[in-house]
């Protein structure tokens, strides 16, 4: 057991994650997203992304983990992370430094200021959006509320992020996003299918309070963008059963770059 433990890929360590009372701490949704990245790790390594991005980086737990999985400049990978909360970008910076990794941080609303020049350049995007159904007037409120308040069906911010993701993702771009059952993930997948994206659930996990789905989207050039009313069969057909945690490591950590 000890030997195999040493071979586990590194992710961010909770004791090194910085915190602030106005910044969302890593929780079940963050862990599920990182577990999804680990489950897809060998694909991510073969994908050779140049630019990776997180929208809404919060504590920095997810982007730090991604940087530990994929490596840094020497591996040809660069990271950019945004948050609308000024405390969050600072906490992310500290969390990354504590792990010996780094990302470019921008204090902005979703990706405002980056949409024009960064369009088509992001190879991997990770998003743990504010997905909790709330009254609409709680969306975008300052501080930690912005990390969870998602408006009607928890979709207000998600529905703003998806077109931005579509704009920023490169031709080979992948998006990993956390959703809740209440967000109607199958409808999100149908909406993305109309934009030409395939999708699958990488991890599905029920916690005491919520049922989380981590969905991966990719540009599927076989999908006709103008197909009207595409059925959800692709989505349902690609449902993966829950992947038992830690059961998927077949490779050692030596193939990092």
């Amino acid at each position, binding site marked *: 057991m000890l030997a195999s433990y040493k071979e586990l890929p590194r992710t961010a360590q909770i004791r090194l994650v910085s915190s602030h009372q106005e910044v969302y701490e890593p929780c079940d949704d963050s862990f599920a997203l990182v577990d999804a990245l680990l489950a897809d790790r060998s694909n991510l390594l073969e994908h050779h992304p*140049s630019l990776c991005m997180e929208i809404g980086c919060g504590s920095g737990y997810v982007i730090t983990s991604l940087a530990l999985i994929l490596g*840094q*400049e*020497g*591996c*040809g*990978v*660069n990271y*950019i992370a945004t948050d*609308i909360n*000024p405390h969050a*970008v*600072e906490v992310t*910076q500290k969390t990354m430094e504590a792990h010996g990794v780094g990302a*470019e*941080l*921008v*204090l*902005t*609303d979703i990706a*405002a*200021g*980056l*949409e*024009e*020049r*960064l369009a088509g*350049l992001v190879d991997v995007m990770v998003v743990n959006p504010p997905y909790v159904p709330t009254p609409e007037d709680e969306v975008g409120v300052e501080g930690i509320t912005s990390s969870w308040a998602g408006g009607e069906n928890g979709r207000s911010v998600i529905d703003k992020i998806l077109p931005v993701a579509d704009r920023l993702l490169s031709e080979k771009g992948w998006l990993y996003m956390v959703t809740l059952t209440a967000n109607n993930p199958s409808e999100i997948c149908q909406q993305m299918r109309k934009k030409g994206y395939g999708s699958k659930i990488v991890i599905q996990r029920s916690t005491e309070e919520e049922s989380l789905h981590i969905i991966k989207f990719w540009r599927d050039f076989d999908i006709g963008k103008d197909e009207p009313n595409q059925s959800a069969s692709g989505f349902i057909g690609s449902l993966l059963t829950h992947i038992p945690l830690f059961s998927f490591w077949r490779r050692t950590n030596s193939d990092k770059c």
Partner: protein
Amino acid sequence: MRLLTHNMLSSNIKGVVNGFPLRIEAEKVVEKTVEMNSEFLKKMFDKVDWKALVDASRAMGYTELPEEVDSSILDSDEFLNRFHHALLELHLEEGALVCPETGRRFPVNKGIPNMLLHEDEV
């Protein structure tokens, strides 16, 4: 903030047509050495707005980038070293990014640009 990031940022104030490139006001510049990856540089060469990078690196006190370039220059190791240094090793730690059209300053503190807009700018 690296110049790679500067090269990807524009002013998106409502009504602004030409928000790129943002002019750099440098108060504090730091250099952090990172490992070079020439494949990454070659890929980014096509994506980077060269003039914006040259002007930005000058504003940061680095004047070693050639003004005119074409892709044949990517065979030169000396060029790749300079490109790498300008793009990834120079950091604007304190200062501001100025909208070329309106003069609005976006502050950069602790290396993080603040691109949040005021209510009347959205």
